[in-house]
């Protein structure tokens, strides 16, 4: 088992801060007790329990000093919507960190591709790369529309290169981030730099990215966070989140996988499974 410290039994903490990033998205802050030393890795997630309702997996959006931890939640259904109705001071149960996070790697350039809510876990890897490495960082940040380009201001305040794109053309490039990725990789082939790709977003988009990195033989240097599946236990026991093919779990073997592993996952990008285990097309 992972020797990392982990909260297993939901720890109820009050929401110390709640900031709306958009109409249906907010960032929640909590103060972790001082002695826990969880040292989470970007890409890892927590199970967030809304008492009386349900518990959902949410990536760590940011953590400062192992203490102030943030989650960014987008309203997608019952529980996530109810989260957005909570207030500062309300109690939420936290357990985690769970899962396999992003590797920092030794490559010279980090290309980060965020689709929609996928920016949340990537925000954490971006700040980690900035503080711990000298890498050149390029962010391709896509969303449906301008309002959903969360953390724009915060990210603009860093030194990283950012390329925005929106599906509706309301800001930045009008189109999918995958198109920009392809361009960039094409140019990069000419230069002699090594690249590591970090991505999170809808599984369809990740599938598109995988196809592109494959063309460039970069699948081993591309990391994907699959944050779009049903999770129950978080530690690989219950079987709810296993992917077809070799039988890997999102909750424990993932949510971050490298491209060469993703290729063996036969339902990647095509099917998900809901709480009862039946398949639905993505």
């Amino acid at each position: 088992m992972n020797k990392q410290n982990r909260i297993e039994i939901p720890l109820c903490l009050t929401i110390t801060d709640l900031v709306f990033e958009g109409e249906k998205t907010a960032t929640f802050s909590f103060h972790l007790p001082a002695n826990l030393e969880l040292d989470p890795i970007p890409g890892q997630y927590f199970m967030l329990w809304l008492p009386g309702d349900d518990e959902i997996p949410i990536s760590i959006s940011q953590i400062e000093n192992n203490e102030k931890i943030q989650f960014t939640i987008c309203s997608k259904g019952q529980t996530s919507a109810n989260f957005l109705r909570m207030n500062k001071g309300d109690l939420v149960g936290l357990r985690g960190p769970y899962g396999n996070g992003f590797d920092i790697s030794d490559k010279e350039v980090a290309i980060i591709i965020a689709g929609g809510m996928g920016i949340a876990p990537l925000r954490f890897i971006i700040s980690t790369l900035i503080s711990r490495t000298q890498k050149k960082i390029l962010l391709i940040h896509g969303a449906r529309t301008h309002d959903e380009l969360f953390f724009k201001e915060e990210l603009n305040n860093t030194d990283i290169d950012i390329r925005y794109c929106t599906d509706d053309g309301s800001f930045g490039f009008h189109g999918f981030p995958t198109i920009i990725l392809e361009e960039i990789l094409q140019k990069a082939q000419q230069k002699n730099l090594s690249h590591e790709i970090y991505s999170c977003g809808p599984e369809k988009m990740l599938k598109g990215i995988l196809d592109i990195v494959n063309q460039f033989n970069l699948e081993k240097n591309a990391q994907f966070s699959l944050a779009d599946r049903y999770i129950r236990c978080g530690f690989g026991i219950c079987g709810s989140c296993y992917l077809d093919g070799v039988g890997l779990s999102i909750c424990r073997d993932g949510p971050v996988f490298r491209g060469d592993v993703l290729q063996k996952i036969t339902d990647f990008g095509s099917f998900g499974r809901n709480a009862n285990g039946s398949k639905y097309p993505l």
Partner: protein
Amino acid sequence: MTELQTLIGTVRIRNPIILSSGIWGSTYSTLNRAYKEGFGAVTTKSVGLNPRKGHPNPSVIYIPEIKSILNAVGLANPGYDAFSEELREINHEVKYSVSIFGSSSTEFQQIIQHMDNNLTGNTPIAYELNLSCPHAKKVGIAVGTDPNIVYTIVEACKVRTKVPIWVKLTPNITNIKSVAESAISAGADAIVAINTIKAMMIDIHIKKPVLGNISGGLSGQAIKPIGVRVIYDLYERFGSEIPLVGVGGISSWQDAIEYILAGATAIQIGSALIDYDAPQTLVHNILNGLNEYLSREGKSFSQLRGLAHE
């Protein structure tokens, strides 16, 4: 490791370590993987008549202090129809049993009949009747504590299929021997014990039960001494009349041997998978430990069964 081949009634498996129901076994890929990683056989997640999303989360909580799990998954499953499609994808060399729950003998019959028809290419080694889940209404424990109901269900299943019928019992009962007796006289081919023990947890800040379903079942190391006693009692009563599959808190070769000495023919493992990055390590450690033990003791595996009763 031919010497660990195990016969459970008429079913021969390559080793006596079986993946227990509800751990991993929701998809064909995990069942294939578990078998590939060394289990002698694998059990599916329990399947019922209709799709069921299970209880709200939290539904599976690990309690590190006692190396145990509290769960109230609530028999989430896609229904027997979709699930039999899933099971058709299982590799042909994989020995698997299908765990089934239901609220009446006709429900069990219906599911078994469908499985029998759909799985002709790769027949399961057994149907394991889950008469013991402690956290779902009208099924599991609700039908598994009354000797008469148990009799009716097992008999109904036996007339419908040639596949062996294993019956999984609950320890949440005053006298487990009497339901076991019913199951055996109705023709059960093996008894599997134990399922989880009714339990719950309350959060003292929110002042609410933690599990979405309020109450659930305890599994893992905490229940090992309880499971060993159930197997010991069953063997004391039935001797080698019926194969016993021991389950509950097994996480090492020593635990496995304890169950075998108590009277188990084979064992199942569930919660212990939490401690391993790959179950391979767990299964191999157990098989190696068993083999070394057998050669130290100069005994064959089948000779171990029930030795603690002498």
